[in-house]
């Protein structure tokens, strides 16, 4: 009774759980335009997941896997449906997850490799893959309730239906390491055997032991929804943030009736929800601060999409960040790898693979 009353009072006064707060971009996260102003990269339709194969970047775009051939990207493998996640092992194995056809293991030329993986096709909504070692694959299932294409619905309906699996490629054994995760969207096996997972809807990074038990919350209350992770040369990690949090979206997340009506009547690309790109159509929702004045959109205007990649040190303290702000092109950064002093980024919203000299 008291709790019900308290909840009602909080909603009435907008306090406690009903208060809408979004952490500011502050300190090392202070906005800049390094990402937006980086030199032109490779124009590729919806590039998604970067990985290092024998030290060279490969990435997915639609159902294709691409790598650099000279200084032009060229496809070296084509899958049956859109690739949703990609990982490479030191031994040159490529793990690929497709939207409709599950997980497959390829060799470095893109030919199917022989492993003990059984029923690879049953996995859906795979958001990230990582090799813990040459025989062990870590798999993030974003949501067991929704397909990956309905990720916005998964957020708006506030599902916590993500899973982390470990697949032994030698024996074919599958172990469910963690359950009920809030859309795990990035995974990395750390040196000590523990596993780092980014939980998008919880806007945090967590560390799990090799048995899957959560041992620490590494970063909490991020200003955006985290995606995939990569090692940085300075000893820390690169964390990509694929969309920003905004007070309006946080508010809508507290309004179930409106959310239901919106999802029922409005096309998904026009929802009040985070997006990989925005400003494409006048049917998209607009917020007050995004009203152009004298033909100019302010870079601090509220936006549904943003480009952000953050370098954190080994203690997960942010030390630098690269931004593409409101109105920019390089939005929806879904993965990053560092290779030879250069940072490679996929801007899924901006249809571009960007490289930045660090």
């Amino acid at each position, binding site marked *: 009774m008291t709790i019900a009353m308290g909840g009602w009072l909080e909603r009435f006064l907008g306090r406690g759980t009903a208060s809408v707060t979004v952490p500011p971009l502050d300190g090392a996260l202070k906005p800049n335009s390094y990402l937006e102003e980086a030199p032109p990269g490779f124009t590729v339709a919806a590039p998604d997941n970067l990985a290092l194969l024998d030290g060279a970047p490969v990435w997915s775009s639609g159902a294709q896997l691409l790598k650099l051939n000279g200084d032009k990207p060229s496809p070296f493998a084509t899958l049956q449906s859109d690739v949703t996640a990609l990982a490479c092992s030191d031994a040159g194995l490529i793990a690929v997850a497709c939207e409709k056809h599950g997980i497959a293991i390829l060799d470095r030329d893109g030919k199917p490799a022989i492993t003990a993986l059984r029923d690879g096709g049953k996995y859906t909504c795979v958001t990230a893959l990582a090799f813990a070692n040459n025989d062990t694959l870590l798999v993030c299932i974003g949501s067991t309730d929704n397909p990956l294409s309905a990720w916005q619905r998964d957020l708006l309906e506030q599902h916590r239906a993500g899973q982390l699996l470990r697949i032994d490629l030698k024996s074919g054994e599958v172990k469910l390491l963690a359950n009920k995760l809030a859309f795990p969207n990035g995974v990395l096996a750390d040196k000590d055997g523990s596993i780092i997972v980014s939980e998008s809807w919880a806007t945090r990074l967590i560390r799990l032991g090799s048995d899957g038990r959560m041992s620490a919350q590494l970063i909490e209350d991020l200003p955006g929804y985290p995606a995939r992770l990569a090692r940085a040369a300075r000893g820390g990690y690169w964390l990509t943030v694929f969309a920003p949090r905004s007070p309006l979206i946080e508010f809508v997340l507290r309004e179930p009736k409106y959310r239901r009506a919106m999802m029922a009547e409005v096309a998904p690309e026009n929802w009040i929800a985070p997006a990989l790109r925005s400003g494409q159509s006048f049917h998209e929702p607009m917020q*007050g601060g995004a009203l152009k004045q004298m033909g100019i959109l302010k870079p601090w205007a509220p936006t549904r999409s943003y480009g952000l990649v953050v370098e954190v040190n080994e203690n997960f303290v942010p030390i630098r960040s690269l931004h593409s702000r409101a109105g920019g092109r390089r939005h929806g950064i879904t993965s990053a790898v560092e290779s030879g002093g250069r940072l490679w980024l996929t801007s899924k919203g901006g249809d571009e693979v960007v490289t930045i000299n660090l």
Partner: protein
Amino acid sequence: MATTSTLAKLRYRFVPDHVIGELLSKKWIDNAIPFLVLLCVVSLFGSLIPNFFSGSNLAIQARELGEFGLVCMAMMLVIVVGGLDLSVGSNFALGNFMTLALLNLAGWPVWLAIPAVVLICGGVGFINGFLIGYLRLRAFLTTLVTLIIVRAIVDMLLLKYSKAMSVSFYDSTVWDLIGLGGVGGVPSSFIILVVVALIGHILLTRSRPGWRAMAIGGSRRSAHNIGLSVRGTVCAAYTISGMLCGLSGVLYAARLGGAGTDTGMGLEIAALTAAVLGGNSLGGGRGSVVKALIGAVIVQVMTNGVLRIGMNSGSGPMVLGLTLLLAVFIDVRWLKNRDKLLSKVYVSPTLVELPTPRPTDAEKGGALALNDRLREVEIIGLDEVESPEDVILDENDYLYCGTRHGDIVRFSPPHYKEWEVYAHIGGSPLGMAFDKAGDLLVCVGGMGLYKIDRDRNVIKVTDETNRSAFSVVDDSRLRLADDLDIAPDGKVYFSEATIRYEMHDWPVDALESRGNGRIICYDPNTGKTHTAVRKLVFPNGVCLSHDGQAILFAESWGCRINRYWIAGPKAGTVERMVDQLPGYPDNINRASDGTYWCAIMGMRSPALDVALRMPSFRRRMARRIAPDQWLYPNLNIGCVIRFNDKGEIVESMWDKGASNHPMITSMREHKGWLYLGGITNNRIGRIRLGDWADKTWSGYRSYWGARS
């Protein structure tokens, strides 16, 4: 599409949510807390004390209140100018003594004695006022000194004359009427209080001296800087305060007919308590007669009530003190949070169910299909004009537009590269029209309807209309005159987009989508302005139909265009002409082939359309998140449409890539060109029209014919 329940519709139709914000923005709402305390006190003691509401008790209380209320008003007056008067009690005692002395000992008649006493006490007040106002002594110390000295004088006089006074008795019917009688059961002292209060209220709130007193109390230095006579006003306030004390003393004398050393003892504390309880700010500048009287009633009911309940003598002041503490606490919190509360509750959305918009998809075709025709727009005055909401051309092809700096800028033909400030009005010039004489009429946001004659003189045409009967806020002033047109008989019809928002936050009105606007008519023959149509949803874009029989106007947030008949059989009625628009229509103007142009200033977004059906969602949004984050109509991109008298849309012109001239609030056809203005733009655009357009057609000739 899900439908909203009838109950919710009725609720939003009949419950006036917006009144809460309007009430909170009124000045007198400050009295709400003291008034609540008053109600509590009266009901508490009314229930505790038997016969509290009986006629005799009320009469006694009212008679005493007559005296005490006057003293409280005296205190309130000096507090309002930023001072304090501790000598009211002594002055009151002096008034009482002098009345008795003049009547009983000197044998003066009543009509002479009363003014004399008022003047004597006014003299004491004048001394205070002179010392504080002119010699700049501290109010607290000065009045403390007069408190002591006047009290001493009264005591000395009492010592000398009390014996003589106690044996004599003044007998007069007038005197008895004042002291014991009344009119129709209402005691005379109460009647006097009411009369004085009414005069005081009018003086303080409706007269120059009253406003000056308030200004001085609010900020002495600013008042001095703007040239008010601070010293004189302060002195006058103390003098009037003294006179009120004197009058109160007279009434006391008439009621009791005796003078003692304890007369008026502690009265200054009671009066000060009452003034503060009523909500008069000790800092000055905030106070009213009503506040003083509310405080007076509270204090009197409490002090008398505590005694009558039978509590011991110390408990009266104790209860008073605790109440004062509570009242001050609540008052401080109220003052601090009132504006916060107002800003949170002012936006009060209502339920709107917009019909499904007509399709705009490029693939599906149709009159509204997206195209790129505005990409070829020629740009005029890039970065030289800001906010050209409307553009207009005269017969000599000069191009005029308003800017957000309050200027009317004129570009010269044929290339429109050179420009000059044609006239400076101020405010935000919006819609424009030429009258028959060639004078330029301009709707100015924040100011009203203005005219620039051919000698470039700026003349105010009108800035107010008749006030609506049941409005909380004064809606007679024009806040956001938006667009106008001139009927053949010379009457000017113009729209006021909203009466609830100022120029700089007009898009917030879209969050409400209530009928906050109106169409107003100015008649140059009588010089009168009256409201023609009320409760319109952001009326905008007024245009006289080609036959001169009707005024077309857009209801922006309603996404529709209406026709208001001004002549013919349907005169005075409004009918729907175009609806289901995919965006928010703005200015409407005539086209050369007998159709009409309409600017669509922004596009509907489906997410906002859903929110429009859920007013409580929008209300919470307005409270919880910052205005910058509010869901807005998309005013970054729009288009131009052309429609005919039957309400059919003929064509549309878009800037699909939003690269050249996406934001449009107005357009004018002139000699084969279409000129475009946009309120958030830094440019004007023009585009050559197709062969259908009459290359000789101009707006002026369409209205007034070729100039003779």
